[in-house]
């Protein structure tokens, strides 16, 4: 076993002072060391996108980053999307459009969509479809995810 490093992870504005091995992925650390289990793990090799979180404004696969690399950066997860009891428009759109079934991939899709739309609010529908092809969902056939994200994109642009 390699030595653990003491780091501070800032997740949704809260500091978590933890000790982790360098090999611990950001996904595992968010879930197990910081107790934020809303971020799910689906493949651990960067294909399924279930573990997508936003690091310093960039949507990334948290299974392909080590936690020690995220020290000092601003991490956002699904738990930080809503403001109090008010859902983020993306969350509301997923509910309104039945964009989730089992809900396992949902946090990854939310963070992917929010992360990209904050960077590129005027992204075209077709490019948005490319973005959504980053993550896998096995329940919805994507129809209602696409619908939800397009609706939320419109609402986010309108703000």
């Amino acid at each position: 076993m390699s030595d653990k490093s003491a780091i501070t992870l800032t997740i949704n504005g809260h500091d978590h002072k933890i000790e982790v091995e360098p090999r611990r992925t950001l996904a595992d650390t968010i879930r197990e060391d910081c107790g934020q289990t809303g971020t799910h793990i689906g493949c651990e090799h960067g294909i399924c996108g279930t573990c997508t979180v936003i690091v310093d404004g960039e949507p990334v696969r948290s299974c392909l980053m080590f936690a020690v690399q995220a020290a000092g950066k601003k991490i956002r997860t699904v738990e930080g999307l809503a403001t109090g009891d008010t859902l983020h428009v993306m969350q509301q759109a997923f509910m309104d459009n039945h964009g989730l079934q089992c809900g396992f991939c949902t946090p990854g899709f939310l963070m992917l969509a929010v992360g990209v739309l904050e960077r590129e609010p005027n992204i075209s529908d077709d490019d948005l479809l490319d973005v959504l092809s980053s993550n896998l969902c096995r329940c919805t056939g994507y129809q209602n995810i696409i619908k939800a994200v397009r609706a939320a994109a419109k609402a986010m642009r309108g703000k």
Partner: protein
Amino acid sequence: MTAHTKGTGLKWVGRSIRRVEDPALIIGQGRFTADLAATHWVRFVRSPVAAGKIVKIAAPKGAMVITAADLKGVKKITPMLHKFNYKPVGQPVLAEVQVRFVGEPVVAVVTDSEEAAEDTADLVELIIDETTPVTDGRAALISGAPQVHAEAPGNVIVEGKFKTPEFGTAWASAHKIIKIEARSHRQNATPMEARAGHASYDASTGRVTLTCATQMPHLTRTAIADLLGMPESDLRVIAPDVGGGFGQKMALPAEYAVLVWLARKLKSSVAWTEDRRENLIASFHSRDQYVTLQGAFDANAKLLALKADVVANVGAYSCYPTTCGVEPLMAMAEMPGPYDFRAYECRVCGVLTNTCTMAPYRGVSRPVITFTLERLMDKAATAFAIDPVDIRRRNLIDKFPYTSAMGLVYDEASYQQTLEMAVKAIDVPAFRAKQKQARAKGGYLGIGFATFSERTGYGSPAFAARGMEIVPGWDTAVLSVDPSGYVEARIGSSPHGQGLRTTLAQIIADEIGVTPYVIKVMHGDTDRSPYGWGTFGSRSLVISGGATLIAARKVRAKLLTIASHMLEAAPGDIVLENGTAKVAGTDRSVTIAKLAREAYTQTHRFKGEIEPGLTETGTYDPPGTFSNACHVAIVAVDVETGRVTVEKFLVAEDAGRIINPMIAEGQVHGGIAQGIGNALLEEIIYDESGGILTANLADYLPPTAREIPPIELHHMETPSTTSITKAKGLGEGGTIGAPAAVINAINDALTPFGVEINEMPATPQRIRAVLRKAEKAA
């Protein structure tokens, strides 16, 4: 939302209300098995070879390592069929003497973290005396093939034969015989959450709680208690939020039994989270079949007789509880599909091989048999020089109830009507014109139809007919209105994404006059939910829905009795709605919450009329009901690369009364996406030595949003005559019809080349191979 036509006149049923499941999931507060902390973590060391004898297992010093030798007294997983020449074979929960597939669990390593468990597992040395494996279903049938189990000589574990008396005459009278040789390659259901288990020992009671990603918590408890020889009451099984199942999580994993054994031994908590590689190599496969199908047609292209031969590669063991008979026997029972003919001959067999064990996967055999039967109809249409739509018009059943050649009774359905609905919506003449234009420019478009019946809500008779030792089918709902006026329904089903908490609440709401938002539907905890069979086989809305309706009607009757006392009116004059009981036509009313309170606290007033309290139980065991649909795919085939793009997908479907159109459509969407994946992309591939070449999601290919076209849905509602809610199941239909529609469309696109492809997935390599052969011949 596309057209949802008929109103029901009822208040909540038939409405696309938002799901009650969503608020927690959407903010990351779902609770999945892997979210639980544990003291010990398990890693399974799995066989790296497909066949062989275990010679030695060497573990690093000091490591906690469990092997079969430690599990004395633990029984083998040995599901049973009492028919079809079934040979019971047992699977030790950890391989004992022999290993039979790559990925079979051999050793359980226990440490204090997942990383450490994997480090230790890497150091465990397995010495296996390798023998020659057999991985292909047909190869396993050849005389002299390696034997997977001594108990099943010739590797045949189950076989079904059926022939109607009139078969010979009908066959002999045929004008044309059409034949399809189809191959369906092996697939993996690939739920986004792989399997996971967490077993925790409670020192004060001696009980173990197993939280796991399962579709059938009660049977998981029964099975593990049986294997370990422990009282069921000492085991509690919880299915928390489960991240999809699609059948893969209805078969019992040997790994869960090991976790419970370990929790009892260590008197602690023990967890295992399956990783994606394990899921792809060792967590049950499906659809690996060879099907030869021949149809005898009269001069008018009317089907007279059908003859089928199915070889299903069921892998190394038999899955619990359905047994590996599930694929071949379903193929035999349901091959006749939606077509009207009397003469049928069928031979099916399940063949053991050195591959991962087969288990049900959404649709079970029906995606394969529908693909084969629908190819047969299209090929026959070509042979008779008629349109694919026309041949279906001539052959689809249109009188109900209809008893199939196999003896299944189809309830009222709309095979012809959904076909016509789809044909009209897709505008076939316009497509043909577009197809012609495209061909002139070197573009190849195709249209494919699939019409099918989907047996849903299988009650116990359907499973008993297979001779299953464990006969699922019925289910129970316990409905309580508590003294606060809130409602709880506890059910034996175990939904994991289907939105059943919402749809059952809609059914209850209409019966007892409250809003769905005061109703909680709880499931998936053997301590609290009644014994039941979980969620699989498009059963839950039909069967749990029926049980819930029965319970709700009883609660309703009680509420009316209490209200009649309080409002001094005849029960028949009282209306339950909007949370109140009202005397029709008056302003006299009382809240349902008040009625509930009385049911507990004023029982002396109703003595002799009703029992105290407001809890009622309903149990339902229907004969089964058949949904139906017509799927249409329009594809473009890039003949240079073999790539198939599905440009449009249209469905006209009929699942009886729809409780929540939004949820129903979501089920169809998801099923179709899996069906398109099955048709074009997804394939588990073994090499000659039995190694798996597709053990990651860059090689095993579930579709992304880019591969799934917009799906257009049209509904009909033919109320079921055999389901008390009048609803039929629809969870599997999308997956059943889509491969047939897509592959028929590919064949239509390739008509100018005179080639045929009857393999799924129809990969670009396979399409180019048939085209290349045609190019060389030309």
